[in-house]
């Protein structure tokens, strides 16, 4: 028996707006050891032709998490709570991004999470939840689609 709430398969969370903050992007960039100043120095970003600091390549996962936190504050569960993920048994299996554009500080993007489905693996020792996050800009449309497998190690 698995732990995930499999009745949530197909669920799409209501869109949540997330405003990309310059300081938050810079903090993330510095933490991951980013050396390209377009990610933490607004003057360098503008000199390179960007409107503001550029969100790093894996920042979509952060935006997805911030959206979940925002939705939890408003009383509806984020994606991990929704599918009943148990942190004691949770591993990250895969993560993928398809980019259609770039995210910049100062923008407000719309975030939707979808529970794609659940599968069992290794004879039931693993159960895998497949989820997607889509981040859309009001004018530039879909910016990035993220997909991930998150795994419960059972038994």
């Amino acid at each position, binding site marked *: 028996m698995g732990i995930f709430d499999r009745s949530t398969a197909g669920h799409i969370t209501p869109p949540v707006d997330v405003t990309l903050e310059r300081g*938050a992007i810079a*903090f*993330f960039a*510095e*933490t*991951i*050891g*980013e*050396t*390209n100043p*377009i990610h933490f120095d607004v003057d360098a970003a503008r000199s390179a032709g960007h409107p503001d600091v*550029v969100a*790093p*390549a*894996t920042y979509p*996962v*952060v935006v997805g*998490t*911030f959206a979940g*936190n925002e939705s939890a504050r408003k009383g509806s569960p984020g994606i991990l709570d929704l599918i009943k993920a148990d*942190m*004691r*048994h*949770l*591993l*990250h*299996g*895969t*993560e*993928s*991004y*398809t*980019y259609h554009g*770039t995210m910049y500080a100062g923008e407000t993007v719309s975030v939707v999470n979808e529970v794609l489905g659940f599968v069992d693996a290794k004879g039931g020792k693993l159960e895998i939840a497949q989820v997607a996050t889509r981040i859309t800009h009001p004018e530039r449309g879909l910016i990035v689609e993220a997909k991930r497998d998150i795994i419960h190690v059972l038994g």
Partner: protein
Amino acid sequence: MTITPATAKPGDTLPPLTFGPISRTTLALYAGASGDHNPIHIDLDFAKSAGFDDVFAHGMLSMAQLGRLVTDWAGQENVAALSTRFTAITPVNATVTCEGTVTEVVEQDGETLLKLTLSAKVDDGTQTLKGNALVRIA
């Protein structure tokens, strides 16, 4: 000669990147910066209660290094896709070494793209991430 996306051929390798050692402080900062507050990465008591000897690094902290590897080389605006499978846990205090290799030239939606294979390994050679990227030829 420096290899760029415009001159790269299958078999060429990207300049490697190392990150670490990944201290407990780095994990605490990554938890705060990413919003991923899963205590398995930052709270030794919780990790032990879940059956682990110690906390371990966020997989996404290593994927961020694969992102740096590719965007440093190609420019972020030229990266069409980035993906990884997490194949082993990254222990606390590990140093991560990331490498990339051009494997093929593909045509997709009227664009010419390079397909890269990516890897992250920790100190003892264990591969922790097995990834791919698609990069536009600028």
